């Protein structure tokens, strides 16, 4: 599997080259959010706002009203949890084109509860005018900026930093409100977001060997949530639906899917994998993924529950797989 180092850092520098109205506002986490080099290259467009996120929201609003595109960089929790009223009233209500680049989504940090954005999707789904984008690999990270910039209003991005795996073909860009179809079949459908997608990719080949046909959709647009593929995939799924997300199961991807199943009368069973209405704590990502049951083996168990049958897949089987970048732009209707 290809591991890309700092894909956001490089992509954002390149992308900003011909966009003089793109500004960066940073709240004392410049290097932690991979905009340190950006600052050195575009010093006149970089504004250090200090540890003052509420004020940063207002400054961003004023700049956006004057035609600039402020890209706010800090850890995700400090973009929506700490300054929520400012985000909602100064930015989201007037539908201003502010880009909130949130690092450390969910349990991707050993920083513990204060640094773990485990309720961001839930909170921002209930914020009118907000668009939510989510990155699952290096290709998503490299191509999310174009998607975000097409949106007239505010956009929140769950961003990945550091060493990021490339799961999707480098040339297949993220598409707005269009999930990546990574596998297709009619027995069950798995929806994943962010870092959970890699876990699913490790499991699906093994499950297919057992004779099950699976649709796997990687969702990168969490709001709006109106991709027609979603209804089609759920409708086809004989045994039911599994969602797996790096987030509380309340209000996130699984909840969005539950709403669709209920409102469209699709009558499928749904198993939601994610943090079960709990806070997390500081530990490694792989440890926390197991602890909160958003890892490959938890997915295997969920599939077993759905089909009511043992699969005889074990932890040691999962690591063996060498993942190659997948083609992901097929549509469900093409399957």
């Amino acid at each position, binding site marked *: 599997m290809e591991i890309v180092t700092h894909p956001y850092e490089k992509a954002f520098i390149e992308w900003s080259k011909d966009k003089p109205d793109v500004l960066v506002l940073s709240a004392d986490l410049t290097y932690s959010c991979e905009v340190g080099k950006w600052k050195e290259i575009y010093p006149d467009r970089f504004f250090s706002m200090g540890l003052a996120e509420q004020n*940063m929201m207002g400054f961003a609003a004023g*700049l956006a009203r*004057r035609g600039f595109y402020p890209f706010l960089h800090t850890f995700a929790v400090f973009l929506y949890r700490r300054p929520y009223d400012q985000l909602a*009233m100064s930015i989201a209500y*007037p*539908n201003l084109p502010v880009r909130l680049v949130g690092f450390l989504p969910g349990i991707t940090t050993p920083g513990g509860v204060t640094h773990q954005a485990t309720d961001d999707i839930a909170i921002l789904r209930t914020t009118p*005018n907000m668009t939510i984008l989510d990155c699952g690999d290096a290709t998503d990270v490299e191509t999310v900026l174009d998607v975000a910039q097409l949106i007239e209003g505010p956009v929140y991005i769950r961003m990945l930093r550091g060493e990021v795996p490339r799961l999707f073909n480098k040339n297949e860009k993220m598409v707005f409100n269009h999930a990546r179809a990574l596998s297709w079949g009619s027995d069950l459908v798995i929806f994943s977001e962010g870092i959970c997608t890699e876990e699913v990719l490790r499991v699906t080949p093994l499950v297919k060997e057992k004779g099950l046909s699976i649709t796997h959709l990687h969702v990168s647009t969490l709001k709006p949530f109106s991709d027609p593929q979603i209804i089609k995939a759920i409708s086809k799924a004989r045994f039911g639906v599994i969602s797996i997300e790096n987030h509380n199961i309340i209000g996130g991807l699984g909840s969005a899917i539950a709403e669709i199943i209920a409102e469209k009368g699709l009558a499928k069973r749904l198993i939601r994998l994610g943090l079960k209405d709990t806070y997390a704590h500081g530990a490694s990502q792989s440890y926390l993924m197991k602890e909160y049951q958003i890892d490959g083996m938890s997915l295997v168990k969920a599939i077993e529950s759905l089909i009511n049958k043992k699969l005889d897949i074990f932890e040691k089987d999962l690591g063996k797989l060498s993942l190659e970048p997948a083609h992901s732009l097929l549509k469900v209707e093409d399957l």
Partner: protein
Amino acid sequence: MNNAEISQMISNIEISANRIRLRVLEHILKNNGGYMSQACSSAEILAALYLYIMKLGPSIAPLTPPKFKGVPGSNNQDYFRGGAYNGPLQADLDHFIFSPSHYALVLYATLIEVGRLAEDALQDFNQDGSTVEMIGHEHSPGVDSTAGSLGQAISQAGGFALARKLLNEVGREWVFMSDGEFQEGQIWEAINTMAYYRLDNIGVYVDVNGQQCDGLVQEVMSVEPLKAKLEAFGARVQVVDGHNVEELFNAGKYHKDGKPLFVLCYTNPTKFIPLLNNRKPKLHYLRFTSEEEKMEYQSLFEELEGMIPWK
């Protein structure tokens, strides 16, 4: 300005200020309630800002306020903004953000007084489907940015001021605030930031009336000494009598010193309406408790109406 012009300015602003108060009192008598003390304290400040201090273009909004046509969103991107009453957003013109949205009635009365809003616009005040809302939002006349969650306007104005610097514009940013807002931590983040980025193109007039919803600011949570605090944060501070027109005007002059300007206007929340003193210390909202009290205000209104040029 020469002496004659200064005298003319003082007279114009003083008359306008009292007429603003009369309009608010008239409305309160009609509706049996409203924000009176805010008009008492801030009328000279708002009249001075609109008539002499801010360099605004003519209103580009209809004299009669439009009905509410929906919240901003992707299906309503070109929604009507109340800032249009303050003229166009233009490089050489000033721009105004009104922070304490609870003063909306006073702002509307001011807009009427300075000819930017129709004489009868207050008929729409707090009526269903109207933009002349009780607490102003950005579709309400004169309200440029949503600031009713207090303490948020100053940061937004900071963003406008920074944009002005980036765009090399000479127009200034003005904010009107109330003293209670200085209890919000965001205010201090904003002042720190404006000083750090040397935003001397922003001017903040503060109505220091010592009043907030629960009562006296000094009893709810004192914000004093405001001048020393603001100066320590890097602001240029002018302290004025908020009813002294000449002081108000002079305090707004531009200084190219890299410091955001704060004009602390110490005011009397019962100015022109001494009857309000009977209600101290709770002056936030005036609702008559008896027909007798209402009659007292009615006769005061008639008395004051006779004293100043009116309608």
